[in-house]
């Protein structure tokens, strides 16, 4: 069985028609992500982070190249299959939470399981289990509008985890949180990664959040620019990230 949860090879994404001015959002990007790894993607605005995430998350299609997630080549799939794939294999955490405000926290978390046709008897223990891990059991019957930003992001994380996906894709999850909540969320993600062996891909421009990752890929002008691994303490890794970013700036 494949050791990699994600295998990206020669990935290109070009905007614009051939006759017009073309823009290479992704230029021959190749990398792998091991099962259970916590990888960060960093880069300045317009570097191609979001495009990379959208293509990997099957929300956007690649112009060329292959992406394999958990051994499945998603570049050859049709719309319906992609939707099913997303609902089974991927979990999403977004900057603006993306909770459905017309559903309770419980219903939000239960939704991915409902969509897969899991019976409501089996849904209940799964929701409570994941809510317990994220410390949000007390707010399950509340509506998103009545809970805090940090709680919303935990609810969103619970929804991303409840169906035990192959990989979690987090797009600036701390972007809308204050530093205390951001820290707490990142610690939760690390906890999930270490204890449950969840593979996480984090897209961020915040060095502090990124310092919780095991490995960071820097992207610039649609190309992979540099890759660093965390070897010792998080603070040291944070410094190392800042240095790389300074290097960018030059």
């Amino acid at each position: 069985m494949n050791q990699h949860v994600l295998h990206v090879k020669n990935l290109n994404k070009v905007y614009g028609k051939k006759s017009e001015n073309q823009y290479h959002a992704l230029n021959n990007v190749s990398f792998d992500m091991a099962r259970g790894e916590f990888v960060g993607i960093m880069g300045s605005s317009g570097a191609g982070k979001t495009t990379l995430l959208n293509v990997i998350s099957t929300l956007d299609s690649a112009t060329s190249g292959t992406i394999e997630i958990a051994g499945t080549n998603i570049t050859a799939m049709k719309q319906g299959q992609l939707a099913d794939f997303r609902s089974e294999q991927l979990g999403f955490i977004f900057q603006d939470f993306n909770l459905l405000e017309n559903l309770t926290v419980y219903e939000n978390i239960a939704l991915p399981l409902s969509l897969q046709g899991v019976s409501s008897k089996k849904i209940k223990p799964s929701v409570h289990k994941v809510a317990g891990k994220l410390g949000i059991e007390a707010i399950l019957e509340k509506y998103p509008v009545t809970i805090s930003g940090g709680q919303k992001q935990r609810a969103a994380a619970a929804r991303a985890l409840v169906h035990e996906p192959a990989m979690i894709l987090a797009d600036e999850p701390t972007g809308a949180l204050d530093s205390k909540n951001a820290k707490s969320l990142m610690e939760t993600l690390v906890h999930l990664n270490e204890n449950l062996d969840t593979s996480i891909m984090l897209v961020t421009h915040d060095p502090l959040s990124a310092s919780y990752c095991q490995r960071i890929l820097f992207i610039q002008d649609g190309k992979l620019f540099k890759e660093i691994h965390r070897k010792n303490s998080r603070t040291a890794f944070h410094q190392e990230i800042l240095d790389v970013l300074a290097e960018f700036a030059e």
Partner: protein
Amino acid sequence: MLLKLSFSSMRKSFKDYLVLLFGLTISIAIFYMFQTLAQNKAFIESNAMISQIVFIFHVGSFILGAITVFYIFYATSFMLTLRQKEMGMYMTLGAKKGKITQLMFFETFFIGIISLVIGIVIGIGLAMGVAELFMWQLNFSGEGFEAFYISSLTTTVIFYIALFVLTSIVNAWQIGRKSVLNLLRADQKQDQIKTNGLKTFFGVFFALILIGVGYYAMMNMAEFKQFGVILATVTIIPGTYLIFISLLPYFIKKLKQNRSLNEKGINSFTLGQLRFRMLNLTKVLGTVAMLIALGLGAMTAGISFYHNIEIQSSMFHANDVVVHQPDNEDKEILEAIDFTEENVYHYKADGKSVYFLKEDLLNNPPGIKKFTDQFELPKTVRVDKALPDEKYSLYESENASGLPEDWQQALSTELNASYQMFGDKDIFIYSTTAYDKIPTDELQVTLGKVDDFTNYLPHLEKLNEGQLQLAESYRGENVEVVGGKYSNYIAFQAIASGTIFMGLFLGIAFLMMMASVLMFKLLSSAGSDVSRYNMLRKIGVRKGLLVKSIYRELFLLFLFPALVGLVHVLVGMQMFSFIIIEPYAKIWIPISIFLLIYGIYYWITVQMYKRIVLPKEI
């Protein structure tokens, strides 16, 4: 510069504006259509069976006007939601508040004027088309009705321009009042849900009581009279709104509490949407239910009146066909009619009198309609009174016995030995001996019964022409009505068809209006759903499932007011039971018309809603 910007952005969000234009246009067209009838006083008065018809139209105009005001405010506030973010952006870029206010006023007014022009054109076409269809169907000349009616046109234009000026001012004021930040973040506001158990309980309780009282008033309209109409109005309208405010949200909440239902597939989302919708839509749903009741009620009443003509004309005649002295052409027509019973009676006539042969009548006694004291339809019975004497006279006469009442009725009504046929001749019944002494030629009259009278209307019309000529030759003067069931039918039809026409015309107008109110309100709130559907797509919900959820959600929203409206109509038809004999006859016709119109609106709403909320696939 700003003007140019605003035009280009209007062009970009064309599909949203299309929804707006469509809604306004429908409203204007229907309003105009209603006015073509309401303002044509001469037409209404000369064609209605109900004396207070002009008053009824005034009430109708008022209701329609009130609904239209709400409708236009929904529509233009939809426009505000479309534009406020961009207006906020102009302001951050330094546009003055006065300029923005001006721009909003201009835009609202501009859209209003465009829809006014299109709406009136459509309204004229619609009035013409609908009127012609019904006139043709009802065999109703509808003289005096004009689809292009200047006074209605003026009213519509003035009413709408005033409304648009008003709403433009409100829109401009609204946008001027808000801070830049409020405008920019307008689409991030979230709905709140609030329910209160006790309040719900009392709401449901009062709703049921109010509607119960209203229904009782309608069912006993004959006793309550005008008071009943007022009582039903003041109870049923608030009762209906209460049902939508308390009962339906409670019902959806209960549905959601059923975990195995709620947690199946996308149900939790569909029900969640519904629950939120219900709370925002209570007033609209209540209004739609009332409009359905009014429109469908008008149409059903119209069709019942139509059906009533046949019943009324059957009340007096046991025989469907009566033909004196059929000529060859008449005989051919009689051959073609499938009689369930057919009898021939002989008579002779001289300059002063008509003599029927007694033995003919006794051998095949004709049926007559016998009225009882109870309020019920008269039954057909055979005349069974003996006629022992030699000579009988229909009218008082010195040398003949008086005729028993049943025989009088048989002769004058069934055999049409009436003034209309014979003028002022005396009518006698003679036994064979006396009859044979009369020197003139023997004549005859054919009586017949058929299964379905209305099937033979064309035949009967031809026979009627022949009878008119015959009566003219008997009476030596111009004859317009000859008697018999067919004459009655035509007379009743002439009285009722104007009323029926108005019922159908107004019914259709109201139904078109109500469905568009609902459609418009749903579409105008669709913008806030875009992000929800986009999110669902991201977490991997197949497009087919999203579409299914939309179909279901909107179906339920369309269903509830339809059910309530339908029940109102079914009970409300009891109101007419004292003037219409069978108020529920052929009720499937108006219900089918309603379902068709409603179904089309439902389908269009789903399609437009899909276009707005479903994320574009890559």
